[in-house]
């Protein structure tokens, strides 16, 4: 009975970690699109001058363990530049910058998989390249990219727990704090694990719903 009352007492505190974890995930997916998509376009259509720096960026953020990135930015780069940022902001930014590196490569592959004829046909109608990319290439490549991009969601969700290391008050951090206070170990970590799994399940459900909603007969992942 004592265990149940401890769980009930601390559960709201744990639940508030959902918002924090979700914030980290959204930042990574959001920055992934906002930064990653232009990078992908730059890699496909840009000159060498554009492609080389993007290549270095991707190589850097994919080449280092997240923990190294977090420490580098939290203890080194941001303080060095005079920014006094909260652990959450640093965690969100680092996951976002890293997400952009990974997601840019999903988008790049999708853009490159759109047939050359689509651009040629668009240009033959008098569209400039920018217009063709916006109205023809992107609507197609985004549909092609969506399954791979959705797949990033569980990766990022599980990766986000590493922000524990810089003290972001996300699910794992809160679970550990509760364990330290109450000496109740398994039930608390199991509760945290259960929440991760539910978030994973719910998020994938939503993403699959979007995939179905924008599917086009005979096109992309919906083909055959």
């Amino acid at each position: 009975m004592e265990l149940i009352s401890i769980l009930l007492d601390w559960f709201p505190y744990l639940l508030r970690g959902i918002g924090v974890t979700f914030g980290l995930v959204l930042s990574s997916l959001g920055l992934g699109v906002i930064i990653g998509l232009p990078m992908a376009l730059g890699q496909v259509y840009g000159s060498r001058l554009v492609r080389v720096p993007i290549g270095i960026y991707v190589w850097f953020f994919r080449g280092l363990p997240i923990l190294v990135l977090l420490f580098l930015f939290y203890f080194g780069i941001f303080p060095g530049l005079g920014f006094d940022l909260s652990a959450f902001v640093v965690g969100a930014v680092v996951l976002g910058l890293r997400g952009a590196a990974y997601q840019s490569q999903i988008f790049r592959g999708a853009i490159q998989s759109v047939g050359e004829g689509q651009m040629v046909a668009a240009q033959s109608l008098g569209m400039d390249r920018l217009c063709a990319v916006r109205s023809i290439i992107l609507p197609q490549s985004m549909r092609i990219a969506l399954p791979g991009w959705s797949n990033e969601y569980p990766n990022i969700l599980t990766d986000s727990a590493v922000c524990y290391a810089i003290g972001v008050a996300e699910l794992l951090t809160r679970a550990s704090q509760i364990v330290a206070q109450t000496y109740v170990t398994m039930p608390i970590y199991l509760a945290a694990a259960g929440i991760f799994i539910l978030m994973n399940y719910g998020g994938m459900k939503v993403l699959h719903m979007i995939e179905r909603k924008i599917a086009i007969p005979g096109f992309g992942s919906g083909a055959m």
Partner: protein
Amino acid sequence: MHTDEYILKVEDIHKAFGANEVLRGVSFEVKKGETLVFIGSSGTGKSTLLRCINQLTPPDRGRVWLHGEEVTNSGKRINYFRQRIGMVFQNFFLFDHLTALKNVEVALIRVKGMSKEEAREKALAELRQVGMEDWAGHYPAELSGGQAQRVSIARALAMDPDVILFDEPTSALDPELTREVLEVMRTLAQQGMTMLVVTHEMGFACNVANRILFMEHGVIAEQGAPGVLLNDPQYSRVKNFIGQFLEYNGD
């Protein structure tokens, strides 16, 4: 006005891909309402020639004029000329994520700046013209090759071009589907559309063309009205070439 006589003028076009000289000085002129058919063996530069006209493949040398305005070296204005020069491709190149209707609409909205209602009405009218109005809501993957090609013709027509380039429009189709596409093209020709057609359909060339241009090794080897080419012994090469096809087809 001498320049007004011809709507399209092609002057001394050269194009090489590496060491391979595909076009070695091609010149011709097109009057409004004419249908020119380009024939010749594969690899003689017919398709490249069409792509040089709307600069999808920029020529190495030579010039193209539309209504007396230079299309070559026109910088950003090339997008204006491409609206005026329609193109139909061997593999249709319909936009795979758009319905037949939207395929025809999209450039009207994005390039010509039409309102959605206006574009829709125009697109439906063009689909009707090619007999595809009932398929307006279908996606390219749901259409037969012949239907897809007719939609792509409607897409080109919707821009109200001065001339349409047909790059082997039936080469990817079986004979039955070929016929439905050629029927549409014949009607267009009769309605006075100016057309440049690269094809191996000799029946179409002989019956619909005002002029046949026979290409060999990157130049126009012989040209003239079908009746003249087929009957005048001076044009033996083109006659032999056409003859092979007709024999093979059993026509």
